[in-house]
C-alpha cells in the first residue's frame, strides 16, 4: 500500500511540475522578450505585472471553437496535439531533481528512454502537418521531419559521450558521477546537445518549420482553440525538458554548495538559467534558412560531436 501511495504521489508531483513550469517559462518569455525589446509586455491580467496573462490566454483558447477542416483526416488531426504533448510528460518522470531518489521513477537506461520518447513527440507535428490538408501545413511537416533527421544524430552522439564519461545510462547515475571538470571536458558536447535540442523543439533561430512569414504557422496552421494551445504547451514543456536534461547531463544537476540539503534548488536554478538563454536566443538571432539549417547540422554539429566522442574516449582511457 505504501509503495502504491509513493508511486502515486511521485506521479502527481511530476504532473504538477508539468503543468506549472511550462507556464512559468511562457510568462518569463513574455516579460524577458518585452524588456529586451524595450517595452512592457502584458501588464493588466491579474493586476501585478500581468502575472495571469497565460491563465487568461488559456481561458481564451478554451472558449474558441474547435475547428477541423472539411478535407482533413479527422482522427489523425485530432490526435496530433496529444501525441506532441504527452512524450514530454513521460520524459519529466525520469529526470532527477535532487540526490537520494528525488526523481519520479528511476529508469535503468534513462538516457536512451529520454531521447527515444522525445523523438516520438515530433510525430505529433508530422501528423498535424499531413492531416491538415493544407499545403503550408504539409511544407511545415516536411521541414519538421528534415530537421528532426538532421539534428537527432548530433544529439544522440553527444548524449552517448556523456554516457561514456559516466559509465552509465541512468540519469541519476550520471549526476552522481559528476565532477566539476566534466563541464569543460564535455563543453563542446554540451553546446552541440543544447543547439540540437533547440532545433528539435523548433525554437528560434531554428523555427523554419513554423516560419510565420512564409508558411503561416507550418504544421499548426489549421489548429484553433485548445488543440492549438496544446501544441504551444508542448513547445514550452519541451523547453523545460531540454533545459533540465542539459542541466543533468552537462552542468552537474544538483551539484553545488550545500547540495545535500538544497540540491533540487540547484537543478531548478540551472534549468531556469538555460531557459533564459533559450528565450534570449529567440530575441537576438534571426531565423536560419532551410539550407543553412541543414548545413549547420551535417557539416558543423555532427563533426563536432564525433570529435567530442573521440576526446571523451581518449580522456577516459587515460584516466582509468
Amino acid at each position: 500500500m505504501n509503495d502504491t501511495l509513493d508511486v502515486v504521489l511521485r506521479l502527481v508531483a511530476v504532473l504538477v511540475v508539468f503543468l506549472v513550469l511550462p507556464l512559468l517559462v511562457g510568462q518569463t518569455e513574455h516579460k524577458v522578450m518585452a524588456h529586451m525589446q524595450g517595452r512592457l509586455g502584458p501588464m493588466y491580467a491579474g493586476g501585478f505585472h500581468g502575472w495571469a496573462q497565460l491563465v487568461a490566454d488559456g481561458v481564451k483558447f478554451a472558449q474558441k471553437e474547435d475547428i477541423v477542416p472539411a478535407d482533413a483526416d479527422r482522427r489523425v488531426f485530432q490526435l496530433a496535439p496529444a501525441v506532441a504533448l504527452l512524450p514530454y510528460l513521460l520524459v519529466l518522470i525520469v529526470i532527477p531533481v535532487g540526490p537520494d531518489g528525488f526523481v519520479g521513477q528511476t529508469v535503468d537506461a534513462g538516457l536512451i528512454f529520454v531521447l527515444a520518447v522525445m523523438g516520438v513527440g515530433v510525430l505529433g507535428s508530422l501528423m498535424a502537418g499531413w492531416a491538415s490538408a493544407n499545403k503550408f501545413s504539409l511544407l511545415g511537416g516536411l521541414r519538421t521531419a528534415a530537421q528532426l533527421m538532421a539534428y537527432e544524430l548530433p544529439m544522440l552522439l553527444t548524449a552517448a559521450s556523456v554516457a561514456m564519461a559516466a559509465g552509465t545510462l541512468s540519469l541519476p547515475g550520471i549526476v552522481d558521477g559528476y565532477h566539476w571538470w566534466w563541464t569543460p571536458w564535455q563543453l563542446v558536447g554540451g553546446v552541440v546537445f543544447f543547439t540540437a535540442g533547440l532545433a528539435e523543439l523548433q525554437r528560434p533561430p531554428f523555427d523554419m518549420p513554423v516560419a510565420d512569414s512564409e508558411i503561416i504557422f507550418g504544421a499548426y496552421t489549421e489548429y484553433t482553440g485548445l488543440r492549438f494551445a496544446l501544441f504551444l504547451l508542448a513547445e514550452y514543456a519541451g523547453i523545460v525538458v531540454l533545459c533540465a536534461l542539459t542541466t543533468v547531463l552537462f552542468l552537474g544537476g544538483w551539484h553545488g554548495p550545500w547540495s545535500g540539503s538544497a540540491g533540487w534548488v540547484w537543478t531548478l536554478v540551472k534549468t531556469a538559467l538555460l531557459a533564459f538563454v533559450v528565450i534570449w536566443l529567440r530575441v537576438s538571432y534571426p531565423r536560419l534558412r532551410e539550407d543553412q539549417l541543414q548545413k549547420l547540422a551535417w557539416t558543423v554539429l555532427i563533426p563536432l560531436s564525433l570529435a567530442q566522442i573521440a576526446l571523451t574516449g581518449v580522456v577516459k582511457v587515460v584516466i582509468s
Partner: protein
Amino acid sequence: MNVSAAAHPGFLSPTGVEITFVLIGLATLGAALLTVTTRQLVHAALWLVVALGGLAVEYLLLTAEFIAWVQVLIYVGSVVVLLLFGLMLTKAPIGRSPDADSENRLVALGVGVAAAAALVWVVVDAFRTTWINLHGVAQGSSRATGESLFRHWVLPFEALSVLLLAALVGAIVLSRRDTGSPGSAAPSPAGATPAATPAADAPAAGKEHS
C-alpha cells in the same frame, strides 16, 4: 505468485505479466495487420508506429529495458519519421490511394507467411527451454545487454557494422551526381528546391560519419 512462478514455469498458471504480454501481443498483431491492409498510405505508417511501440512494450515486459528504448528510438523516432518524410514528399493524399496498389497481394501474403513461419520456427527452436525470471534481477538491463553484446557477440556486431558501412557508402555512390565536369551532369537546374537540399546534403555528412 513469486514462488510458484519460479518453481513451476508453465502456461497453465498465467501471471499478470503473462496475460498482459498476450494482450499487448494481440494488439501489436492487429496493428501490424492494419498496417498492411489499410488503403491509406499515411495511416499505414501510423499503424506501424503502434505495432513497433507494442513490440517495445513486449521487450519491456520481458525485462529487456534497453532493447525496448532502443526500439522506440530507432524505429519510431527515426525510421517512421523517414517514412513519413518520404510520403509527404510524394504529397500522400488524404483518403484512399487506389493507384498505390501493385496487385501483388497474394505473392506478398505468401512471402509474409513464409517469413513469419521461418522466424517463429527459429525462435521457438532456439528458446524453447529458456525461461525468464521476471521477479529476479533484470536480465535485460543495459549492463547485461552490453556485456553479452561485447563479450560473446562481438564478431556479429562488427560484421553488422561493416555491412551498414557498406550500405552507407553504397548510398553515397548511388546518390552522387557530380562525377563528371560540373554543369554537364546536373539534370536539375542549379537553384534546387528547398526540399531537395537535405537529400543533397545528407550524403556529404554520411561520408564524414563513415
